[in-house]
């Protein structure tokens, strides 16, 4: 028992060690931490109300009282960006959770049961891969009728394709392992084997893949909001802010510039963090993005 604890401890230590040795991973961790703190403390750190109209300060350039300027309703861009952090984080996580759930389930079924089940699932995956993702997400979101929840559903039901492929191939190699055979011989049910023996052994790959998917989930959600299908005004969501600022580009460059920078740094942070996690947790995948 003790030796097992110790072993687990040393494994964790190696992961932490590899992770902290990468400067970029630490930068990523820092950006994401700042983002979480900002999202959680928005009511206390935002200098102004993100929703209240202020007709005395319409489209003012950055100034000491409004560090990033104001929009066409006199709302401070900085305050809206601070409140918007929450949406970026929640959208990113929720989308990844949904696509992960669908993709992992299908991948487990395809890889474990094989034969017809596998053929049907992989055919569906191929069909989904032949349609450009945003085209499908756009159709789903548009037909469902916009709104944050529908964006999550739209991107989530489109984004699972990569998970299915990954999980299926991992399951295929694990299925033949001795411990799976042993579990089957001792009378464990298929569900039991999948949940207790297969899933835990591929969980690292899934976690890595999920963390690498967060940036694109955030970009997609912002893109749909930009098109007017996601967050609806007056929600201070970054994509929606960009869409609004677009109409006033000639007069107020700050309305489009800063929300975009916020998206960029968020995506950058998650990219660095994801790469760092991959290198630390899944060394065999290391360096993939470089290649």
């Amino acid at each position, binding site marked *: 028992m003790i030796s097992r604890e110790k072993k687990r401890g040393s494994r964790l230590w190696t992961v932490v060690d590899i992770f902290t040795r990468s400067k970029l991973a630490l930068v990523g961790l820092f950006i994401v931490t700042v983002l979480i703190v900002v999202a959680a403390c928005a009511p206390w750190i935002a200098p102004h109300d993100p929703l209240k109209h202020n007709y005395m300060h319409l489209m003012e350039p950055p100034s000491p009282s409004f560090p990033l300027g104001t929009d066409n309703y006199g709302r401070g861009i900085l305050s809206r960006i601070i409140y918007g952090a929450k949406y970026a984080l929640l959208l990113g996580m929720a989308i990844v959770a949904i696509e992960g759930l669908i993709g992992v389930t299908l991948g487990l079924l395809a890889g474990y049961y094989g034969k017809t089940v596998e053929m049907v699932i992989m*055919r*569906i995956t*191929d*069909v*989904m*891969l*032949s*349609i*450009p*993702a*945003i*085209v*499908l997400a*756009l*159709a*789903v*979101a*548009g*037909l*469902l*009728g916009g709104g944050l929840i529908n964006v999550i559903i739209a991107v989530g039901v489109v984004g699972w394709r990569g998970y299915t492929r990954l999980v299926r191939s991992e399951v295929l190699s694990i299925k033949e392992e001795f411990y799976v055979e042993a579990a089957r011989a001792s009378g464990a049910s298929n569900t039991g084997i999948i949940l207790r023996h297969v899933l835990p052994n591929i969980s690292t790959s899934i976690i890595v893949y999920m963390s690498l998917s967060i*940036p694109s989930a955030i*970009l997609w959600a*912002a*893109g749909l909001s*930009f*098109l*007017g*299908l996601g967050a609806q005004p007056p929600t201070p969501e970054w*994509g929606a802010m*960009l869409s609004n*600022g*677009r109409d006033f*580009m*000639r007069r107020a*460059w700050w309305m*489009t*510039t800063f*929300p*975009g920078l916020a*998206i*960029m*740094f968020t*995506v*950058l942070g998650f*990219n660095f963090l994801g790469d760092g996690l991959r290198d630390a947790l899944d060394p065999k995948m290391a360096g993939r*993005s*470089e*290649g």
Partner: protein
Amino acid sequence: MTKYILRRLLLFIPALIGVTILTSSLIYLSPGDPARLMLGPQARTEAIVQLREEMGLDRPFYLRYLDWMGKVFRGNLGRSLQRNEGVADMIMARVPATLQLAFFALIIALLIAIPTGVFSALHPNSLFDNVARFFAVFWISMPSFWLGLVLLLLFSLRLDWLPISGQGGPIWTATGMLHIILPAFALGARRVAILTRLIRSRMMEILQEDYIRTARSKGLSERIVVYRHAFRNVLIPVVTVLGLQIPWLFSGSVIIEKVFAWPGMGRMLIDAVFKRDYPVVQGSILVFGILVMLINLAVDLTYAYIDPRIKYD
């Protein structure tokens, strides 16, 4: 070779049937009534019921689907609910613009990525290499539509060097070229990052290979070693990645077309989605699917051309 192409084309059929079932059920399941939407909120119930009958909206799902499929096989994608135009004609009028945009985005991406990647690989960790890698990280994290807006702000509104939106004219004219620069760059920027990284790392690996040492020891000039011997072998993974990027290019072009008011299929699709113009939505998704499949086939055939070791039969 011909047999291979035929087999691949035959495989399109089940995939396309899948795509059509998917889009049809999506439309069937979606809330909102196009008949009500077309007639407006003041419309009388009888009028709506009548229009629903005319449009076939009252029939069961499978009948509507089979009916639509029957027409699709005859090249008829139905009529737009919003404009009195055939969907097939609307799409045909806009496909060239979308393809041009995607094509130029790729060209711009390659024009930047190839020299950057090769130079970085030849001088790893030099100032140039570090700057290029730094930029790559930014390109990859930037939302393309925001980059589009920033480019518009800078080059069209501030500097007044390039036109703001639209297509201007045919692509072979000077105005047409000026109009495509910004949208194509905004769309291609992410690809620049992906391709530069790929070319750099593959090139560095290949430069370590034995055959490169052999080529050098034969006294060949560095230029021939790099371009004739090393670079040719970088092209194979580049083509693979390009193939994988095509669906993403179309995805990106949907939003970029909206930003730059580019008269392509993406913008048409967005408008159709907002107006619940179902035949247009269905038709454009189908055509996007066909385009992606055709381009993937073309990519696979390109392998055989660049890498003589690959043979299809």
